[in-house]
């Protein structure tokens, strides 16, 4: 059975770009950037290869964290970063060629960023859906609030 050795090193948002630069200086090629959403954690894998040696950097973030772009180091990352932005809704700062959500124009916005459905217990799905819905609602509210508040304030001012 052929199984490659694959190392995974965790990095943070702060040292991502410096770690990626190190890989670049050592002559690694950027293979891919892939994202996955597990529960509420976004896991972004940066894969590198040099002479068929396969190495990964892994960044774990929660919703709302802004990830720095690595296009300053590897320009080709723009295609993966735009894809992650379009599919997962992860915001990535300073992409060299930023399509602003128009690379893969899907009919559903951020299709991969759906609440994870856990199939562990049979009784709970309804609840977890409710929780998910509840989880989605505050976002709507928080979006709506800034609009309503100024209105209310305006009314006060007018009064």
């Amino acid at each position, binding site marked *: 059975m052929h199984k*490659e050795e694959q190392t995974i090193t965790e990095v943070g948002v702060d040292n991502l770009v410096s770690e990626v630069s190190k890989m670049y200086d050592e002559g690694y090629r950027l293979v891919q950037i892939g994202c*996955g959403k*597990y529960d509420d954690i976004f896991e972004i894998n940066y894969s590198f290869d040099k002479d*068929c040696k396969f190495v*990964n950097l892994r960044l774990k973030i929660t919703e709302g964290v802004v990830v720095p772009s690595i296009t300053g180091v*590897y320009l080709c990352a723009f295609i993966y970063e735009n894809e992650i932005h379009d599919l997962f809704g992860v915001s990535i700062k300073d992409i060299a060629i930023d*399509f602003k959500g128009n690379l893969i124009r899907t009919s559903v916005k951020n299709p991969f960023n759906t609440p994870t459905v856990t*199939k562990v217990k049979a009784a709970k799905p309804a609840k977890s859906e409710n929780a998910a819905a509840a989880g989605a609602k505050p976002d709507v509210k928080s979006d709506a609030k800034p609009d309503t508040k100024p209105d209310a304030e305006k009314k006060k001012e007018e009064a």
Partner: protein
Amino acid sequence: MAGRIVVPFGPQHPVLPEPIHLDLVLEDERVVEAIPSIGYVHRGLEKLVEKRDFKDFVYIAERICGICSFTHSVGYCKAIEAIMDLQVPERAQYLRTIWSEYSRLHSHLLWLGLYADAMGFENLFMNAWRIRETILDAMEETTGGRVIQGVCKVGGVRRDISDAKLKEMTAKLDSIGGEIEDLCHVFFDDASVKHRSVGVGMLSKEDAHKLGAVGPVAKGSGIALDLRQTGYSAYGSLDFKPIVETGCDCYSRCIVRAKELAQSVDLIKQAAANIPAGDIEVKVKGNPDGEYFSRVEQPRGECIHYVKANGSKNILRERVRTPSSANIPPLVKMLEGCQMADVPVIVLSIDPCIGCAER
């Protein structure tokens, strides 16, 4: 000096069998910048893992692309097998190798034809596709499908090829070997092919490395990147050396593919001569739990199937990075500074497979 104009190219364009859209910024006839925009073929099939169990997903993986279909199923199965530590029988590994190389033959012949067509050389297009039909016949006789085979499964393969059939297949390859050689000679030596492709679509070795080029695009720019060197399936026990050209232009990429035809024929013959007897599959028990990046060399280059699973029958995440999506940044680089009339040839030189790139 004319001002800059933007010319849209695609999605429906006579030279493109598939929809890709490029905004070409032109100064007179010269392309200053090319901005790709994709999404016409995006299906979102990676998300289907939530609805299909991990064994059923093989047939979705196979339909990521109708040209690299077999190699996609090998890539996905390899990921699951690595996670579950399945010992796939040697014979199955050899059979996978044989079919993978047949896929490469069919894909490269298809590409050589399309490339000839992009140059306006229709006779050559017809000839390449005529030879390709004999490859498809062999595929159909052994798997049942012409372009979608459905023969690879987790733990092995579905069908065996008898020794008599293997002999027949190699004999057939011998008989079309001469035709393939003749075809390649046109690509190697013909003045009109050279006129259209030498020095067109330059991509230096440094750029190819920086921009993450894979497959024939990297090999045509002097980078010996071929994952068959890692020895997956039966490649470890076959004599194999990646083909590298250093011209860095469309011509080199074309030559790499033409030379790979002969190489694939050689690999099939080696595999057919050395294939061991035995089972073709191993029983799969339980569900996968873990993660693995499976890498295979497709006709278009390195393909990654990343699988993460948590022990349930639906895997958590399948991420596919196809060679075509890796080759889009190099394409953008190649198009800079080229002439408008060369755009179709350059776009085809990366062998774009949009179905793959967008999934």
